């Protein structure tokens, strides 16, 4: 799990082009799309994360509701990947 979270941090930084953000600065338990999150993610980033899951982990998000719970935080993302990775 820890290993996967660290890997996800690097992939997210690359996919979302988060300039000047170090993996250590991303709190895995923090809400990803919260207004208070200094990452400042928005709906386009959500689409980028869907593509990332499909491309890197062969996981397809089928509904908006499903996406909401998966992308709550890095931890929820990692948990979902571990449960569903083929």
């Amino acid at each position, binding site marked *: 799990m820890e290993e996967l979270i660290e890997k996800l941090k690097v992939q997210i930084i690359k996919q979302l082009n988060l*300039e000047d953000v170090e993996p250590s600065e991303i709190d895995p338990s923090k809400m990803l799309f919260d207004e208070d999150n200094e990452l400042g993610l928005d709906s386009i980033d959500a*689409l980028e994360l869907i593509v990332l899951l499909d*491309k890197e982990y062969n996981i397809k998000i089928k509904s908006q509701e499903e996406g909401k719970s998966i992308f709550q935080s890095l931890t929820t993302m990692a948990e979902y990947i571990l449960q569903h990775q083929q």
Partner: protein
Amino acid sequence: MKKNIYINGLGNISPQETFYQAMGETVVKAEGAFMTCQEPNYKEFIQKKLLRRMSRIVRMGLATAHKALEDASHPPLDAIISGTAWGCVKDTEKFLETIIEHNEAYLTPTAFVQSTHNTVAGQIALLQHCNCYNMSYVQGNVSFESALIDAMLLFYDNKASNILVNGIDEQTEKLGILLERLQCAKAGERVMGEGAACFILGAEQTSNTYAQLTGATMLYRPKDKTSVKESIQRILEEANLDAQAIDLVLTGNQDQSLEKELCTNAEFSSYKKLCGEYPTSTAFATAIAAQLLKGDPSTKKALEINKKDVQHILIYNNHQDVNHSIVLLSKVDN
């Protein structure tokens, strides 16, 4: 009806140090087949969270728009008109590469959204909260001139008091490879360049006015030299000038015989030695001409001009005898 139009603010990113409305002391010369821009620290002008999604050309377009608006003391805009031939080519490359690498799957939205030619004009409008007329001209080597003429027509029709006009094109590694293969770029002979120049045009002169935009026109495949000369003479007549009144011709051409036959009192300077060849290079020429008319000594030095008093500047670019463009600028008393 023809009206006076003034350049009241400008922002210019080029291979030279031009961002601060004057030419840098050191003139950068081409080394190799390409000249690339000297870019500012974009974090000073664009929010970090927005910056991460912007490619270089969008950053250059926004930074020059910011600078030009600041320079003109933020007049309310009635139109945003952009000219670009290559558009956001870096994002276009990224999008196309993803299509190839992933067999038409996993296309990410950002590169697609940002790859359209009207991205820069759209982003300027979003950041300035400006929902006025917004247009992007993709017209090859006369993209900037098309934008400029559209702006002039809006002024003539009384539809605008202040208009933002820019000319922007970026160079990328892949575009460079293609240009070299096509023998468009060659070290020492045909140096390719890039740049972003933004202007705030106004119907009224201000204390910051650089120059008056006295005329602009373009010709597509003119039948002979005479028809080009006639077009230049028509622009001069409309401005109540004759060819002898031109003090300086900023030329983009290797063969300068036409302009030398016509403007016998003028000095001639090739502006592309400072910015390289790219489709909207006349926007760079217009910016440095405006700086020179406002009295920037470094621009005069960089262009190697001896004349003490330059009142009228003609910018003439002939691209492969297909697209000819002419821009006329005149000095104003501030």
